[in-house]
């Protein structure tokens, strides 16, 4: 039950973080003025541990799910933005020139050339965002309310039951490793292979 609760928060928060992150990252990658205005800010926000947003989140969303999810979103968001921006900015100018030359402009150029070319970077960002979201969630659950893995861990502490604490820690680490290894690493590898970044010509 605790795990299910945690996973639900994680998935919702993670989903919002990557959607929003890609969106803002794309804007920053495409428009220099936005990048120059917010780039420094995002970098500094990245260094703020996401759990310190919890008191604010509790004020804004009252005690409950939304506050937790907010912290999870914040946990993964900055990193997602920065990866996406880096990916968009790092697109090989030759591909853009080819795209323009082959008749693409404006949004179609972006959709058909720039975004696909940035996918490997974005995927790496997603993989990191998953880990960051996971960390943010645990911290939020330990401090915050509601049922979840973090809560179980705190009970263990309060009862002086170190085997519970250790068990939760193993679950947290195990889930992280398994989800990364089974899902994200595979996706990332597949993308890198298809984009030709792993092996060169035969």
């Amino acid at each position: 039950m605790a795990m299910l609760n945690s996973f639900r928060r994680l998935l919702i928060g993670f989903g919002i973080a990557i959607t929003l992150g890609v969106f803002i990252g794309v804007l920053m990658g495409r428009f220099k003025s936005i990048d120059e205005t917010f780039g420094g800010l995002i970098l500094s926000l990245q260094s703020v541990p996401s759990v310190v947003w919890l008191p604010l989140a509790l004020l804004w969303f009252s005690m409950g799910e939304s506050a937790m999810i907010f912290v999870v979103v914040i946990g993964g968001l900055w990193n997602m933005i920065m990866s996406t921006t880096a990916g968009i900015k790092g697109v090989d100018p030759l591909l853009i020139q080819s795209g323009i030359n082959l008749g693409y402009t404006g949004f179609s150029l972006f959709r058909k050339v720039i975004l696909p070319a940035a996918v490997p970077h974005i995927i790496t960002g997603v993989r990191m965002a998953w880990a960051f979201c996971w960390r943010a969630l645990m911290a939020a659950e330990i401090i915050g309310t509601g049922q979840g893995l973090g809560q179980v861990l705190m009970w263990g502490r309060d009862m002086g039951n170190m085997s519970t604490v250790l068990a939760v820690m193993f679950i947290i680490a195990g889930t992280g490793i398994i989800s990364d290894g089974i899902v994200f690493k595979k996706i990332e590898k597949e993308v890198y292979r298809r984009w030709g970044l792993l092996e060169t010509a035969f």
Partner: protein
Amino acid sequence: MLELNKVTKYYKNEKVLDEITMTIKEGEFVSLLGPSGCGKSTLVHIISGLNQASDGEVSMDGRKITRPSTDRIMVFQSNGLFPWLTVEQNVAFGKKDNGNKISKDEVKKLLKMIRLTSYRHKYPHQLSGGMKQRVSIARSLAMDPQLLLMDEPFSALDEQTKNELHDELQKIWMETGKTIIFVTHNIREAVKLSDRVLVMGNDPGRIICDVRISEPHPRSHADQNLVALESSILRLLEKEIRKQKEGEELHGTLDEKKSIFNGSITSLARTLFYKNMA
């Protein structure tokens, strides 16, 4: 018909192209030949519209060129294929001016022409350098451009593959009758492929010689006339490079350069003529 009128280009304060004037007729295969840094690549980018001239103008069939167009397609040295698309999808990628996609039949025909039909579902990273370049050429031809611009397309390839692609390009050119502007620093390549070789000099970039070659196509490397022509162009370029090294102006350049060539011209009975002598 492509016309360049006193095209000049500055990078910061450095003049990289100096009043280039030339006319290229439809169906011609023209090489821009010169040492690295002579601005030949910049010139072809200006013709494509991907780069702009600081001064002077470029026009095709009377219309001024200011931006890229699907009329003039560029083939780059490092191919510029989209790594996330298969060979087939890359060839079919272009979008014509009227918004039409490239038809399946056309793609099939082009894949057959470059002999990569069996590779159509492969990704670029699974191909060799020569194959990639062939896909890049097919992708450009799919747009049915008036002008095909090739910026050192084969210079990263090994000698054998290069020869193979030369023969293929000659064949394609003879079949399609496209106007081709081919940038290279390889004299043999230029001489073998083109109707006309525009030899460029350095510092600032300018055309020092316009060589016409009337040898019938397809040609082979072994052709003695071409070999002789190759060495006379080499001498001309060596002189140009030496001049640049010593940083001194040659006096009476016109006569000297003419005399280098005279021997080969008469013996080859080729028409060579001179333009833009410094």
